[in-house]
C-alpha cells in the first residue's frame, strides 16, 4: 500500500478511454462499479464537449458480482452496437473489475458475433501502467487491429501520396493543450507544403487507418503517446518517424530540419531554411524577445521545471538555451521513461528530479526558492503557498488548461505563447515584490514575528533592525545565508557588521 494524497498521472483505463473517445464513432464500454465512470464528467466539463461522451459504464453491482458479468457486458455491447452504430467498441475494465480475472476476451468474442461494430478488449495491465502508458498502448492496439484487418481484406493502401505527407500521431482528447497544438501543427505542415494524411487519434475514423502507410513519415510530437504506433509502422512499413517535439524556436527548427532530411531521403527536394529564418526573425516574436531588454532582465534568474517528459524537457531547453535562465533542477513524473529525460536535459540544469511524489517536488521547490516555477497545477499551488509564481506547462489537466482562446504550446505561435507564459511568470512575481517594497513603506513592522525562533544564534537588535530593512521576499534567504556564514565563522551573535560581512562573503 502507498499513502497517496495526489497523483500526477491517472489510472490506465483513463488512458484507454482518452484514445477510444478521441476517434470518431468509437464507443467505450467500461466494465466497472458505479462511480468509476467519471471520465465522462472530465471530458464533458473540461473539454466543454457539446456531444455526449461515447463511453457507457456497464455497471458491476453486488447482483452482477454474484451471478457473473458476462451476460451484462455482452448485452451492453450489443445494445450500444444497435443504439449508436459505432465502428468500433472498446471494452475496458478498471482497476477494480480487472481483479475479477474474468475472461473478458471471451466476452468480446461472444459479443462480436452479433455486432456490426468491431469489438476489442483494451490490453493493458491496470496495476503496472498508468494513463499515459495505457494510452500509448491502446492507440497501438487499435492501429495494429485495423492495419491487420485491412491487410486481411486487401484494402491496405501502401502507395505513398504523390506529394510529401505526414501522419501526426498522439493528439488526444483531454490532452494538455492538444486541440490548439493540433491546429498549429496543421498550419506548420501547410507552411512546409506537407499534406496531412491523418491526425491520430483526435477526430480520425478507424476506417482511415488503412491509409496510414500512404504518408511519407510520422510525426510524434509528444514523447508519451504515439511512440508505440510509430514504431509499429516503422517495423511494418519502414515508415520514418520524426519524434522531436517542436516546442521553442530551437527545437521547432530542429524538428523542421529533421523533417526536411526525412523528405529529401525519399526523393523530395525541399529546403526549409528560408522558412525557419523568416519565421524566427519576423513572424515568431520569441527569438526577438530572447534578445530584447525584457528578457535580459531574466538572465541568470533561477527557475525549476517539473512535468511530463515532453513538456518538462522542452521547457528546460527553452529556459536555458533561449532565455538564459538558470534551471536549478528539472524533473519528470514519467518514472518509467526516466532515462530519456535525463539524456534530454543533460547539461541544461544542475540537478534532475525523477519522482511521482508531489511532496518530494514541493520540498525541492522550497529548498531552492526559485524566482519562478514551471510545473503542473500542483506546483502552481505549492508556489502560491511559497509566494513564488508558477507557469503551468503540463498535465494533470485542469479547466484552466482548456482555454477557449488560441493557446498552442507547439510551433511558432506556441513560441509566442511561451514567451508570455515565461515573462508573466517572472514579472507578476516581481510586481508583487515591488508592491511590497514600495507599498508597505509607511507601515512596516519593526520586527518580523518568529524570525529568530529556534536557532542557536542570537541576532543583536541592530542586526535585526537591518535585516528588517530587507524586502520580505528575500529576507528569509538573507537570514539563512547570514546564519550559515556565522556558524562557519564561529560567530554566535549576529550584528549589523556580521550581516554585511556575510553578504560580501557569499557575493550576493
Amino acid at each position, binding site marked *: 500500500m502507498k499513502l497517496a494524497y495526489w497523483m500526477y498521472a491517472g489510472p490506465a*483505463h483513463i488512458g484507454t478511454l482518452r484514445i477510444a473517445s478521441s476517434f470518431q464513432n468509437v464507443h467505450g464500454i467500461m466494465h466497472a462499479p458505479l*462511480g468509476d465512470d*467519471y471520465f465522462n*464528467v472530465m471530458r464533458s466539463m473540461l473539454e466543454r464537449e457539446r456531444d455526449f461522451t461515447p463511453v457507457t459504464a456497464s455497471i458491476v*453491482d453486488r447482483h452482477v458480482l454474484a451471478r457473473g458479468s458476462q451476460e451484462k457486458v455482452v448485452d451492453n455491447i450489443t445494445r450500444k452496437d444497435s443504439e449508436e452504430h459505432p465502428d468500433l467498441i472498446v471494452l475496458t475494465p478498471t*482497476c477494480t473489475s480487472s481483479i475479477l480475472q474474468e475472461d473478458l476476451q471471451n466476452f468480446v468474442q461472444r459479443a462480436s458475433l452479433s455486432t456490426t461494430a468491431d469489438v476489442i478488449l483494451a490490453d493493458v495491465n491496470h*496495476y*503496472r501502467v498508468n494513463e499515459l502508458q495505457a494510452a500509448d498502448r491502446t492507440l497501438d492496439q487499435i492501429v495494429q487491429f485495423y492495419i491487420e484487418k485491412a491487410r486481411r481484406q486487401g484494402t491496405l493502401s501502401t502507395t505513398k501520396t504523390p506529394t510529401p505527407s505526414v501522419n501526426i500521431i498522439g493528439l488526444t482528447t483531454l490532452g494538455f493543450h492538444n486541440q490548439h497544438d493540433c491546429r498549429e501543427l496543421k498550419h506548420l505542415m501547410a507552411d512546409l507544403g506537407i499534406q496531412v494524411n491523418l491526425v491520430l487519434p483526435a477526430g480520425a475514423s478507424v476506417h482511415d487507418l488503412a491509409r496510414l502507410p500512404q504518408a511519407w513519415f510520422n510525426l510524434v510530437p509528444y514523447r508519451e503517446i504515439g511512440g508505440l504506433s510509430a514504431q509499429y509502422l516503422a517495423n511494418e512499413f519502414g515508415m520514418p518517424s520524426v519524434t522531436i517535439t517542436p516546442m521553442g524556436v530551437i527545437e521547432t527548427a530542429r524538428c523542421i530540419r529533421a523533417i526536411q532530411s526525412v523528405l529529401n531521403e525519399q526523393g523530395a527536394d525541399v529546403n526549409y531554411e528560408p522558412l525557419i529564418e523568416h519565421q524566427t526573425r519576423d513572424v515568431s516574436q520569441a527569438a526577438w524577445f530572447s534578445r530584447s531588454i525584457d528578457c535580459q532582465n531574466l538572465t541568470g534568474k533561477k527557475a525549476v521545471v517539473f512535468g511530463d517528459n515532453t513538456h518538462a524537457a522542452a521547457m528546460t531547453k527553452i529556459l536555458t538555451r533561449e532565455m538564459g535562465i538558470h534551471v536549478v533542477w528539472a524533473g519528470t513524473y514519467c518514472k518509467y521513461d526516466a532515462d530519456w529525460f535525463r539524456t534530454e536535459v543533460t547539461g541544461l540544469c544542475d540537478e534532475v528530479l525523477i519522482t511521482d511524489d508531489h511532496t518530494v517536488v514541493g520540498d525541492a521547490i522550497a529548498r531552492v526558492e526559485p524566482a519562478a516555477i514551471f510545473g503542473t497545477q500542483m506546483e502552481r499551488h505549492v508556489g502560491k503557498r511559497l509566494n513564488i509564481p508558477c507557469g503551468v506547462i503540463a498535465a494533470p489537466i485542469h479547466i484552466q488548461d482548456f482555454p477557449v482562446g488560441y493557446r498552442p504550446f507547439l510551433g511558432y505561435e506556441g513560441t509566442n505563447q511561451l514567451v508570455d507564459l515565461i515573462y508573466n511568470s517572472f514579472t507578476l512575481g516581481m510586481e508583487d515584490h515591488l508592491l511590497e517594497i514600495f507599498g508597505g513603506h509607511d507601515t512596516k513592522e519593526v520586527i518580523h514575528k518568529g524570525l529568530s525562533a529556534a536557532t542557536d544564534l542570537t541576532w543583536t537588535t541592530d542586526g535585526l533592525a537591518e535585516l528588517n530593512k530587507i524586502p520580505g521576499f528575500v529576507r528569509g534567504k538573507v537570514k539563512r545565508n547570514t546564519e550559515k556564514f556565522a556558524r562557519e565563522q564561529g560567530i554566535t551573535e549576529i550584528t549589523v557588521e556580521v550581516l554585511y560581512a556575510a553578504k560580501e562573503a557569499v557575493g550576493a
Partner: protein
Amino acid sequence: MTTTAPNALNVECETGNYHTFCPISCVAWLYQKIEDSFFLVIGTKTCGYFLQNAMGVMIFAEPRYAMAELEEGDISAQLNDYEELKRLCLQIKRDRNPSVIVWIGTCTTEIIKMDLEGLAPKLEAEIGIPIVVARANGLDYAFTQGEDTVLAAMAARCPTPTAVTNTEERNPIQRLLNFGKKKEEVQAEASQYHDHPPLVLFGSLPDPVVTQLTLELKKQGIQVSGWLPSKRYTELPVVDEGYYVAGVNPFLSRTATTLMRRRKCNLINAPFPIGPDGTRAWVEALCTTFGIEPQGLAEREAQTWEKLADYLELVRGKSVFFMGDNLLEISLARFLIRCGMRVHEIGIPYMDKRYQAAELNLLSQTCAAMDHPLPTIVEKPDNYNQLQRIKALQPDLVITGMAHANPLEARGMSTKWSVEFTFAQIHGFGNARDILELVTRPLRRNQALAGLGWQQLV
C-alpha cells in the same frame, strides 16, 4: 418491473446503467465537517484519481484524507494487510494525530474480501487511535449513501450516558450557545424548553445550517441533545435506549436502522426539512412526537413562501425532469411541485420506501393539493433511456449529473447539476431561497441570453 408504492406512487426499476459519483465522495464533506478526523480511502488509483478530480482544488490544501493505494502486491495478497495498514496509520498518527481514522472501504476491498472490520479493532488497540470502518463501495451504494455508511458506523460509537461524566461538556452546540453566559442564565434558558426525551438529529450539514435547524426547534421548545456527526469525533452525541432520533436527509436509511436496532432509539419518521413545506412537516412531526403544540409554524411557512414570490413567478408552470443522482430527488420534487412546477420523472439511485415513507406520503398529498399527476419514480435508471424520454418530453429543466449537462445544454435543454443540491445549504425555512436560486439560474440565464439568437449549438 413495477411495484406498488404507498399512495399508489409508481416506482419503476431500470438497468442501473446510470452515471453518478462514487460513494467515497462523502469524504469531501465529512472530513471538513468532523474537524479532528482523518479519512483513509483504501482503494486503487481509480478511486484516488476520482477524488482528486471530483474535489478539484481542495486536495491542495493539505486535506485530512488520503488514499491507501492498493498496489499489485496487495491485490495478489503477497503483502500482509494488517502490517500495511498499520504502517500507513502510524504515519498518519505521526503526521496529523487525528482523534479518529475512518477507513473507507471501496469496491476493491470488497472484491479482494479485505477484512477491514476484523483488522480495525486490533489495530485500534495497538496504535491507540479509534478506527471506524465504513464500506462506502460502489457495488452496494450510490453517491450520497457513502455518508450513510460512515454515520451508521459512527452511530455504533456514540457514547452512552453512563460512559460520560459531564454531558453538558459534550454538547458543543449547547456550549456554544451558552458561551459567555452565567450559570443562572443557562438554567433560566433551560426552562424555555419543554420537558421531552432526548432528541438526536442525524445527517451531516454545514455548521450554519445545524445552528439554524437547532434554533428552529428551540422556537418550539424542543431541545436538540446532539447531532450525528458532531464537529469533533470526541464530541459524538450521547445515545441511549429510548432516545428519539430524526434524520435530516433522505439517504440515511442505514444510519436510521443502526440507531433503531443497535442503539434501541425511536426513529421519528418525518418528511425532510427541505423547502418551507418539508421543514414545517418535519418540525410538526417532531412536535407531535413530543406532544407539543407547534407555535406559529403555519405563519412561519407562509412568510417563507411570501419571500419566495419572485422566484415562484419564474418556475410556476415549468416542467422538470430528475435523472437521479443524490437521493434528494423525492424531497426536491415534492417542493418543486408545491412551487407549481410539473415533474415528469423522478430518477433516483435507490429508494428505501420505509425510511422515506413520510416523504412519499407528503409527495402524494402535495400532488393532490396541487392537482398534479403522481410522477413516475424510476429507481436505478438507465441514462440512455432517460435521454430518449427527455428528447420526447422536452422538459423546461433537467436536473442531472455532471456528465450530461453540457450535451443537453448544447441541444437547447436547460439543466441544473444535481450535485449542487448536495453541497448547497438547502435545509430549513431560511434556505428555501437557495434551492430556488439554483433551480431558476438556468431559466434566468437562458432568458438573459434570449437576445443571442442561438438555442441549439450542435
